[in-house]
Structure formats: C-alpha cells, structure tokens
C-alpha cells in the first residue's frame, strides 16, 4: 500500500517538474503508438468494412481468423519482427531493428486485427440497414464501403481507440524489437519494466500513472473534439 502512495507521489513530482526524460519518453510513446494507429486504421477500417459488404467463399474463415488474431501474443509478434529485421534476417539490409520504425511495424501487426474485427462487427449492422438502399442505387462496391465508413464513423472511432489502447499499453513486442535504448527507443511501458527490474517500484508506478493519465486524456480529447456523448446527439 505504501508503494502505491509513493508511486502517486513520484508521478506527481515527475509531472510537476516536467522531467525532461519523462517528456521525451512520453512523446516517443505517443509517436510510436499514434503512427502505428494511423497506418493500422488505413488498412483495418476499409478491410473490416469490405468484409461486411462482400460475400465470398472463405469469408467465414477470414472473419474467424481475424477474430482469433485479436489475441496475438505481442511478444511472439515482437520476436518474429525481430528475426525478420535482424541484420541476418531477410530485411536486415534496411537496418530497422532497434529503431522506432521497427516498434511501429510490430504494433501495426498487433492492432490491425483488433481494429478490423471491431470495424467488421459495427459495419455488419450498418450494412443490414443500408443494404437495400445502396443496392437499389446501383452503387459500386467501393462507393458502398466509403458510404458505410463515413456514416459509421462514430463506431470506427471506438475501434480506433481500442487499437490505440492496446498499442500504448503494449510492452512485449516493443521491448524485443526496440531494445529499450535510452534516448532512442525507450517508451513509457519499457521504462516501467526497467524500473521494476531495478526494484524502484515508486518510479515504476509513477510512470504507470502517467501512462494511464495519458491514455485517459487522449480518449477524452478525441471524444471532445469529435463531439460524441453530447446531449443532443447520439
């Protein structure tokens, strides 16, 4: 119990003093997770919607696979990306291992199935509503996907925020592919793991509270900016 109190205290002082290292790793956490989220959304949102609209032979199989991949163990993803990006691996010439880019790649792989799955769930319902209208208007497949994406944007926001949540709190994969290098690839979660290893629970918890506060404020900011949860709208 004392540990938690001193953790809160450590978090308070870190934030009040605007500790330079804290600002740096917090910004890097955001940089990695937001980049991964942006790219994952570009893949997952159209993919999830397309799966709701399109009928094809292995559709059930693909959807089941996508749902299963939501539970991808990050550390395994990290290990595979590590082996691929290692100098002795197939993409070694790119020299990407132990850079933020490698961390972004790993996180894209982790969160894309999650976002695509949630998107598909939401779009399936919307498609049932829009089906007759869009078919009778003789729209092309791409037009249908675009219409659903736009009209279902609030549900997609939830999908994106779920992806962000998984990315910002993830440690297994980015520890392996990033290497937790000070001033290069250290982010909030890997710093927490490091401080725990040193037995400095107060600082580790302090960083943990900063991470939680960051996740909450990003969610609040997104909801405020996009005007959800306002009385007059749904």
């Amino acid at each position, binding site marked *: 119990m004392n540990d938690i109190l001193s953790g809160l205290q450590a978090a308070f002082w870190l934030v009040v003093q605007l500790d330079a290292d804290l600002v740096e790793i917090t910004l890097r956490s955001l940089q990695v997770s937001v980049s991964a989220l942006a790219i994952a959304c570009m893949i997952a949102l159209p993919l999830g919607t397309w799966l709701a609209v399109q009928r094809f032979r292995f559709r059930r199989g693909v959807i089941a696979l996508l749902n299963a991949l939501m539970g991808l163990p990050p550390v395994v993803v990290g290990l595979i990306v590590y082996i691929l990006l290692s100098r002795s*691996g197939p993409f070694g010439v790119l020299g990407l291992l*132990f850079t933020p880019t490698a961390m972004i790649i790993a996180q894209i792989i982790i969160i894309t199935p999650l976002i695509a799955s949630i998107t598909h769930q939401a779009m399936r319902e919307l498609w049932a509503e829009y089906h007759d209208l869009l078919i009778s208007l003789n729209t092309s497949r791409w037009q249908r996907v675009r219409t659903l994406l736009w009209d279902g944007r609030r549900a997609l926001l939830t999908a994106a925020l779920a992806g962000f949540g998984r990315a910002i709190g993830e440690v297994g994969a980015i520890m392996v592919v990033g*290497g937790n290098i000070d*001033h290069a690839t250290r982010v909030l979660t890997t710093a927490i793991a490091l401080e*725990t290893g*040193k037995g400095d629970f107060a600082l580790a918890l302090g960083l943990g509270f900063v991470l939680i506060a960051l996740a909450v404020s990003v969610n609040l900011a997104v909801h405020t900016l996009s005007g959800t949860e306002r009385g007059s709208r749904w």
Partner: protein
Amino acid sequence: MNRLIATVVFAFIAPFAQAEVLRMAVTTSFNNSGLSDVLLPQIKADTGLDVQLLVVGTGQAIKLGQAGDVDAILVHARAAEGAFVAQGYGTHRREIMFNDFVLIGPSSDPAGIAKTQSAAGALARIAAAQADFVSRGDDSGTHKKERDLWGDAGLDPDRFGAWYKEVGAGMGAALNTAAGLDAYIMADRASWLNFANRRGLALLFAGDAVLFNQYAYLPVSDLRHAHVNHQGAMRLERWLTSPTAAALINGYQINGAQLFTFNAK
C-alpha cells in the same frame, strides 16, 4: 489529418537523423549498476559517439553480435567470449574492468552461509538445508557463473528440488523475486548496491577469489558484417582503456563502496 501524416513521416525519418551512433550490447548487471550513466556522457563529449546500449543477458548479447545487430559487446562470460572471437564474430577480446559476485539471502541466514570460508562451501550449505534459492536461469553471464560454482561444490543444479527456482529473468527482476520469497540468490555487487527493494535480504557472503567477475569488450568483426561501425568501435575501445575511463570507473561509488576496478592493459 495533416498532423497525423506529419507524425507518421517524422516517425520514419527520425531514426536516420542522428549523430554517429554506436550500438553496444551490455549485460543487465553493467547497466543496473548505474556506471553507464556516468560513462556515456563523457564518451559523447570525448569521442562524439552516441553510444546506444542494448541491455540484455550475456547469452543474448553474444547472439546480437553474431547477427551483426550491434557494433560491439561488453560482457562477462570468459568461455563464451573466447568462442565468439574464435568463430570470427568478434575481432578480439579486451579486458576492461572487474567487479565481484556476492551471495545474498534472508538476514536470519537459515542455512548459515555467513560463517563459511568459500563460495562452494556456502552453496553446499544452502543445498544441504534445501533453503529457497533463486537462480537467474536466463543463460546470462551471472547464471553461467552460478552454475559453475554449484559444479565447484560438487552439485548439479538440474537435479535440485523445488527449492531451486530458475526465474528466467534479469538481475533486478530476480532480486525482486528473491526479496518476495525471502530466498538466497547470487548477484553482482553493483546490482545489489543499486537495488532498492531489499525487504529482508542482506549481503551474507563475499570475498572468495572465485567470485571475481571480469568484463571484456569485444568489437564485432566487419569482415563478417560489413555494415558494422568498426571504426567507431575501435575509437570506443581506445576511450574505454584510457586514463579518463580508468578514473571514472575506479571513482564510481555507491554509498561509499567502489563497484568496479579498472584493469585494462
């Protein structure tokens, strides 16, 4: 959306917009000691090298060197280092400094190791008492050393019962586990002095010559991996063996205790 794109672009450009970078794999014990925080700024000032540390166990450090993912390694496992050079992964091995291992345990010392004369004797007592013992179990230099010491005592860790707990973790995490279980553990002195969460643990045995822990620096061969920064690695070696490094290493203290002794020749 524009800002989003800017962030993405920045994320891809950032890794390339850095000063001369040297990647070095080091052991957890070296980094947890806090010595790296003293050395790195001075290295940057004297040589212009931006040394990026990958803090891993010796087993993984050697693996990183073999794959060419780092430019040099700083580890402490004599046999593995010899093989690393013999197989052509490293150009040579240079001794830099040493510290020592210590035996930590519950301050009540149920196995009575504080009174023993040798490390092997102390371990034999722990085994005889079947007192809880936490082992790193991660193929690190510390783990290899610990297994060697059990061998010296005529014991085989693979045959131990449930009291011998291999946690497969770094030094700090293993110390946390030992503190939680009130168990014995072997640690390097630096990690122990820097460890904050001691609870009921105390330093019980130290000083036997076999607990001596030599750190060596091995640049990765540029014949095998043409992309490694061998020039930088050689510059770092010159710095690590210089009088400046000697003064910083010998002068580094925690609570008045010297942790490392410089012995580069």
